[in-house]
């Protein structure tokens, strides 16, 4: 009985390690970066809609956040500052609240002073389409609508400028 009790979970652990090693050999398939960014349309808190495909020809920075996320408030002043350094004709910024309610998300934006266009992913579809696991996460989308880079965790000013620079300078 002891063998069954302890053996099963331990076997699963060992099996998972072999599985992951196996997956590594197949990992020549493309990963998230450089893939086409899934199109979506989101209702903005300030009115109107943001449709990603309408912004082709511009660099797009999408920041996923939640009002209850411990570290999300840390990066909002940085995003706000950097967003004002680029012309809206060249770079579009968008904040998307996930796993959240409209009231809480709006209160979070007001408290942290983030004024870039923002909306709520009401159904969780955008989150799932982007394969999001954890917050905050920021996606950098090229003028051609491809995911150039994604950063999981709090962004720094240098990182934001570096990644946006790559998008803006690309021809």
């Amino acid at each position, binding site marked *: 009985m002891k063998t069954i009790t302890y053996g099963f979970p331990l076997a699963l652990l060992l099996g998972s390690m072999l599985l992951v090693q196996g997956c590594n050999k197949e990992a020549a398939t493309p990963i998230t970066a450089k893939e086409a960014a899934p199109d979506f349309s989101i209702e903005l808190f300030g009115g109107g809609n943001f449709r990603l495909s309408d912004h082709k020809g511009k660099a797009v920075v999408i920041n996923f956040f939640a009002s209850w*996320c411990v570290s999300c408030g840390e990066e909002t002043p940085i995003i706000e500052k950097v967003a004002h350094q680029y012309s809206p004709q060249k770079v579009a910024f968008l904040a998307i609240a996930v796993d*959240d*309610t409209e009231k809480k998300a709006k209160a979070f934006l007001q408290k942290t002073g983030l004024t870039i266009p923002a909306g709520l992913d009401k159904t969780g579809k955008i989150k*799932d389409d982007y394969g999001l696991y*954890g917050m905050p996460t920021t996606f950098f989308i090229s003028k051609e609508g491809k995911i150039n880079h994604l950063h999981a965790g709090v962004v720094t000013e240098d990182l934001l400028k570096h990644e946006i620079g790559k998008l803006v300078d690309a021809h």
Partner: protein
Amino acid sequence: MGGGAALWGGFSSFFSIWQLCIMQISPFFIAFLAGIYLATLGQKEEAGIIKWILPPCIAYAAGFTLFYSLLIASGLSFSRTLTGNIGNLRIAAGAVILLASLYIFLVNRVPALGKMHRPPLLSGLALLIGVSFALMYSPCITPMLSDIMGLASQRGTAVEGWYLAFLYGLGTTIALCLVAVALILFLGKSKAALRLASIKNACGVILLCLAFMNLAGLMRHYKAFVLGFVL
């Protein structure tokens, strides 16, 4: 970053401000473990912690850390299959949690379930609960987890990132299991022991609420109001 640092990072995050995010799962795991153990106290004479609690903790750790780390390791093709089907998987997770809550309610009432109530069955259930919790979890990304996810999202370093994410998740899970066991020991020795059946049923209700929120897509309300309130 070494494996030991990742393990310690996960363990220490449990006892820090990051616990607020882990509260998406920690009260529910404690309710699950307490529920199955209190059901054991109600019908078994030999209800030692090592025999009845340790195997489900190991199984939970295996299920949770495996799927948690795979979901983080977006550079792995298998991880992408998981994230591509996450919506359906979350519904399945809700169904598993529903079954676990019903089990806790009925195990002392249905003789057939009582006979099946053995450590291997509880370990199997704990394994599925671990997988389910990993699927419904949205971790807050700590600075260390941010570094790990950076590795795990790149094709060339995905396995290294997965390994570190596994150890990070394992560290968090070990801390959670230790706290759950301590609470159960306290519960067993306190005056609350007189109301064990009521506490067991309360654990079932807590899991039932989680299953309902998960199946009805209402988890965001729990996260926004409960976690937001604490924050």
